[in-house]
């Protein structure tokens, strides 16, 4: 262990600090299910990408060590909750930021910390998001030994003129070698992230990237259409060269068709998987199931309560240094909200939702029922017996439906 990354092994355990009522929200709201997910947010990147509005900041000296110390405290505080011994983690997902900035020993310590406080299912899915330039075969091997069994590679593009414009630090070759390194390191559940609708990306360029990546035979592909988020650099300053809407739609379909031809299932709006390789962690979100949160700005859902951690990393660390869970906001969902969420999350997936959920929502809302008929008539929505789901064409327009369903 490098001296800079040392953290104390002994912690004060303060499960419930009466001076901070929000920190105790988890103490009074036990999960409904036995199996939970855990999302861990790593709030650092070497450099922020233009399109990104996530909670991340450049990694400065000593920041990683302070963060990891706080994270360990947080896991300990979570583990000390009265109900913690009764639950089991079915998935752990390290997202960011750039979690692959963690050295192997840091990753191992983090996962050890989690296992020390929680029962982790023997077959748990443990995912780490990686940026190509920050991984080597050795590192990924180290991750695997530490327990990581799924990797998600942030490739985004294979166009060497587009990649730097995005602010990415790798090139197409680097992407390819990262993928190979992951395979060589023994990763058998390997996902690739791509983006379409990018500035300067035309259909031919996209088709080339799609076909190349599919040739690598990833187990899972996530493909996100670019959205200009208010919190991103591009959202604030604007960006030139975004393809026209029809071009973006063509790009969506190009991938959908290619993925189908290769036997990948389009199982969620932005996700494709080999049979059996869907992301278990993300499915927790889409099923409105429960998950814990750790790390700055991370969000959790436990016992009918959605909550979020403090976003700013320094304050996150200070709060934990004071022995308090850094929960900044929480909201108990009404039954109507719960239903709304289940519908809009479930309908993101190809499996859709039980027809009975929709019926509950439609009860007495004649106007919405009529609108849904239009969706069906246009083959955007399809029902197979007791379940109802959006078609691939419906996915593209899904927000227009979700607004209605809330």
């Amino acid at each position, binding site marked *: 262990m490098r001296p800079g990354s040392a953290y104390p092994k002994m912690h004060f355990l303060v499960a419930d600090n009466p001076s901070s009522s929000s920190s105790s929200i988890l103490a009074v709201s036990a999960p409904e299910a036995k199996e939970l997910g855990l999302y861990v947010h790593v709030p650092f990147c070497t450099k922020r990408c233009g399109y990104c509005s996530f909670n991340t900041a450049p990694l400065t000296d000593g920041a990683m060590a302070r963060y990891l110390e706080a994270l360990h405290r947080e896991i300990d505080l979570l583990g000390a909750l009265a109900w913690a011994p009764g639950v089991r983690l079915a998935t752990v997902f390290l997202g960011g930021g750039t979690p692959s900035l963690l050295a192997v020993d840091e990753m191992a310590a983090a996962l050890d910390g989690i296992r020390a406080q929680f029962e982790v299912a023997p077959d748990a899915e443990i995912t780490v998001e990686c940026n190509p330039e920050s991984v080597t075969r050795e590192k990924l091997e180290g991750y695997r030994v530490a327990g990581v069994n799924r990797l998600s590679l942030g490739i985004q593009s294979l166009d060497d003129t587009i990649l730097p414009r995005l602010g990415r630090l790798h090139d197409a070759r680097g992407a390819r070698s990262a993928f190979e390194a992951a395979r060589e390191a023994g990763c058998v559940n390997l996902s690739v992230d791509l983006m379409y609708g990018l500035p300067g990306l035309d259909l031919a360029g996209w088709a080339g990237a799609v076909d190349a990546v599919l040739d690598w035979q990833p187990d899972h592909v996530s493909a996100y259409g670019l959205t200009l988020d208010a919190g991103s650099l591009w959202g604030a300053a604007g960006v030139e060269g975004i393809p026209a809407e029809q071009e973006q739609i063509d790009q969506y379909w190009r991938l959908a068709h290619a993925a189908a031809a290769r036997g990948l299932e389009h199982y969620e709006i932005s996700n494709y998987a080999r049979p059996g390789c869907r992301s278990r962690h993300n499915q927790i979100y889409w099923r409105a199931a429960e998950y814990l949160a750790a790390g700055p700005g991370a969000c959790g859902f436990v016992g009918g309560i959605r909550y979020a951690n403090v976003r700013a990393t320094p304050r996150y660390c200070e709060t934990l240094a004071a022995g308090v869970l850094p929960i900044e906001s929480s909201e108990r969902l009404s039954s109507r909200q719960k239903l709304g969420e289940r519908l809009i999350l479930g309908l993101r997936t190809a499996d859709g939702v039980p027809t009975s959920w929709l019926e509950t929502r439609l009860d007495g809302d004649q106007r919405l029922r009529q609108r849904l008929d239009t969706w069906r008539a246009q083959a955007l929505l399809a029902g197979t017996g007791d379940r109802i789901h959006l078609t691939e064409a419906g996915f593209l327009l*899904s927000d227009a439906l979700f607004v*209605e369903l809330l």
Partner: protein
Amino acid sequence: MALRRIRNFSIVAHIDHGKSTLADRLLALTGTMDPKKAVDQVLDSMDLERERGITIKAHTVRLLYRARDGQEYTLNLIDTPGHVDFSYEVSRALAACEGAILIVDAAQGIEAQTLANFYLASDANLTIVPVINKIDLPAADVEGTRTQITETLELDGSEALAISAKHGTGVPEVLEAIVARIPPPEGDPEAPLKALVFDSFYDSYQGVVVHVRLTDGRVRPGMRILLMSNGRSYEVQQVGVFSPDMRPVEELSAGQVGYLTASIKRVADAKVGETITETLRPTAAAFPGYRDAKPMVFAGLYSIDDTEYEALRDALEKLRLNDPAFTYEPETSLALGYGFRCGFLGMLHMEIVQERLEREFNLSLIVTAPSVQYKVLTTAGEVIDIDNPSKLPSPDRIEQMDEPYVTSSVFVPTEFMTAIYKLAQEKRGEHRSLEYHGKRVHIKFDFPLAEIVVDFYDRLKSISKGYASFDYELSEFRPSDLVKLDILLNGDPVDALSSIVHRDKAYEKGKALVEKLRKVIPRQLFEVAIQAAIGSRVIARETVKAMGKNVTAKCYGGDITRKRKLLERQKEGKKRMKQVGKVEVPQEAFLSVLKS
């Protein structure tokens, strides 16, 4: 109280010349209002008045003033609105007064409503005290304004007081002038009660609060009073004055201005212009009465949510209690369902009513394009009033159509004359007369009312860099070549989007309208064709393309709440859409008919 110690006056002026600000200073100087506690334009007490910085309703307040002659005087001040929509408020206020302070902005000079209000005051035989305000402004031209007052108003401009209501300069002299120049009221406190109702509002606890000006007699609680026009009798509950809040007093007597309550249920039972007298000892002759404020524009009001129809009806009923100038009656629209056809004094009045309904009654409304009232002579020889385009008989049943005209005054610096004439021509105006007043001209035009109710004033202001002012008055009906312009969405006519337009302007108007609608109708799951048609002839067409893509790629890191909140906000926006057939049409689409 001796009549010679009473002065009753209104403050009148063109919009924004500083009436309410002067009222503030008068309240402060007389100690009616603690200046430290006072906000600006304290009499503008409605939320809407405060937000928009304008006076909508006349406000009455009593001041006690110790003059330089050592005597204490009771001054009854009525602050009035300057906007043309509310000029009827000015006339009723003047009916309660012996004098008027006529303010002229030293930088702007005499404007259209200065003149209009001057005529109202001099027709009512009031003593007019001219006041030149805003002398603190760098652009103030006090001497030029004096000359204008002399030449245009035929008052003695040299007698005008020069003040800054904002800074208080010269305001003490205004108080002295009120005492010295405005005559005290006349009347006999011992004669039978005779009081003029010049305003009234509904209060849910006390019933109608009636603003009265007594010419003879006295009134006190317990007295039985008679409303002479309808013969109803009531027992007086409370009498009082505004200072500026309602303050009960023992009695009001001849010459005084104040209020009374008498468990009167509806404002309509104690209308403006009503004469109140004693039941036991009625006065001989009632006041001549007062014409009702007549609505000039009509529009449909519909709740976006069909289930709110009843709530809308209740709200209209309540609102009308306090605003008799506005009228409503049920109507139905194929596109919008059940609603009400409402009459307003003008566009500002319409906006205010809509805003009050939405705010005070928490309703979401659609207002259809406003229309004036036409007179239609049918081939069967009947004359019918049409204030809703969709009610217009088919062309083969129409013998002749007449539209309302106004006479109007435009005051504008000479350099903008050409632009004004161009605008007038576009709006089918007919030139009547032209008078030069120094660097400015006073032009009189006749206009079809329909051409000026909507955006004329805004256009006038923008082409004259804000310098032109405008006033109008309904004059007569004239025959006109009018057609009904229909709008079709995916082939179906939308009655609420129809309008009546002059034949020569139909094409241009139809084109502008479909273009505007294309911009405001959001993309839907299917393509929407928007057409403008006269009868079966389509004269313009636009399409709203079908929605291509509307998707959130990622709910990052399980942050579902953020996504839900985003969608919830969008849903709020959608609440302001009305489904017409299969097409979702936003609220503003219905108003776009008028702005194109």
